[in-house]
């Protein structure tokens, strides 16, 4: 209260430094719970210091968890960007500039998310380092306080102890206020970033970045590429078959022999389902062939 009055009264000629200092100290002092026997206050304060140490260490762990989450998302986005570039290259190879453009547009979107995440990652890393250093500094001060506390308890009566205790307190309570603020700021930043990380997860799930992991409209570029490549396979197959037909036209008349050879192949295909690997090209032909045996058999029988 005194500090507040002082602050208001002198604010006009007091700079930012002094006002911040006064408010800070007023709060730090109020945070001290004074006990009847000042030596009890020492023990009580020491407990609170240990609690704060635990809290700041947990803060470090929380920030690290957030950082790892961002790292995971960065990896996913990077994979996605690579994949989209690959698709663009394939699309260009097939003469589909429109499809390549669509893939590159999505890649640009993934890339911009990635840049954003990189900045977040750097911030979280800095926050983690700051809290780590803060926890080490607090640990040193808490150790110093414990030593001082034991000395005071061993050496002084309650009445004598007061001034010594005040000295020890002012230093540690200032540090505690500062560490408390560092934890608060780290928590705020982490919360902001978690919200943004959640938004990116949603974006990826929506398929806007063409996430390979999920989403109903996933990977329409890939499916179009697949379709094109499938249809070009069909074309190739078609021209191969046409070629066979023209060169084997005379033999075509011996349809019975042809039919027999297919019928002979069919049992193999049925007996050993793993046989078809070679017929990657023959497969379309061998499927009707396996259906066919009924016909020749009918014809023969």
């Amino acid at each position, binding site marked *: 209260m005194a500090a*507040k009055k002082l602050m208001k009264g002198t604010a006009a000629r007091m*700079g*930012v*430094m*002094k*006002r*911040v*200092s006064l*408010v*800070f*100290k*007023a*709060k*730090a002092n*109020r*945070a001290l719970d004074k006990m009847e026997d000042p030596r009890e206050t020492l023990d009580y304060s020491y407990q609170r210091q240990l609690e704060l140490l635990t809290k700041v260490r947990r803060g470090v762990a929380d920030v690290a968890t957030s950082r790892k989450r961002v790292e995971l998302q960065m990896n996913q986005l990077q994979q996605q960007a690579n994949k989209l570039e690959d698709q663009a290259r394939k699309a260009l190879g097939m003469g589909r500039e429109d499809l390549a453009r669509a893939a590159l547009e999505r890649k640009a979107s993934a890339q911009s998310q990635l840049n954003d995440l990189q900045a977040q990652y750097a911030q979280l890393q800095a926050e983690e380092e*700051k809290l780590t250093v*803060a926890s*080490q*500094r607090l640990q*040193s*001060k808490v*150790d*110093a*306080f414990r030593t*001082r506390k034991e000395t005071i308890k061993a050496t002084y009566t309650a009445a004598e102890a007061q001034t010594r205790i005040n*000295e*020890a307190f*002012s*230093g*540690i309570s*200032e540090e505690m*206020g*500062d560490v*408390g*603020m*560092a934890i*608060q*700021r780290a928590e705020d930043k982490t919360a902001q970033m978690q919200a943004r990380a959640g938004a990116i997860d949603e974006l990826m799930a929506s398929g806007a970045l063409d996430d390979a992991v999920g989403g109903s409209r996933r990977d329409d570029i890939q499916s179009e590429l697949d379709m094109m490549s499938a249809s070009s396979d069909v074309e190739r197959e078609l021209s191969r078959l046409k070629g066979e037909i023209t060169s084997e036209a005379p033999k075509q008349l011996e349809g019975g022999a042809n039919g027999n050879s297919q019928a002979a192949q069919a049992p193999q295909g049925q007996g050993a389902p793993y046989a078809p690997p070679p017929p990657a090209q023959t497969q379309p032909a061998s499927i009707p062939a396996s259906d066919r045996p009924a016909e020749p058999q009918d014809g023969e029988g």
Partner: protein
Amino acid sequence: MIVRISGEGQFSIDDTATAELNRLDSELEAAVNRNDEAAFTSALHGLLDQVRAQGSPLPADTLEESDLILPPQDASMDEVRSMLTEEGLIPG
């Protein structure tokens, strides 16, 4: 004189450096009053750099109280404003 940069630690500074710190502090205050974030950031960084340049860090295990407490390096103007009130950032 002992100066704490919040989130960073305490520095011991010769009293002769006070005049320069006060000058930088006036800049900082002017920036806050003008609501000029860019000027605020540059004034704050100038002030903190001056403390780091002129001061020597206190050992971590010291229990000395600071004469001055300065906002952290990455503080925004709004944050510093809230540090000027009782409802500010510092957990009570």
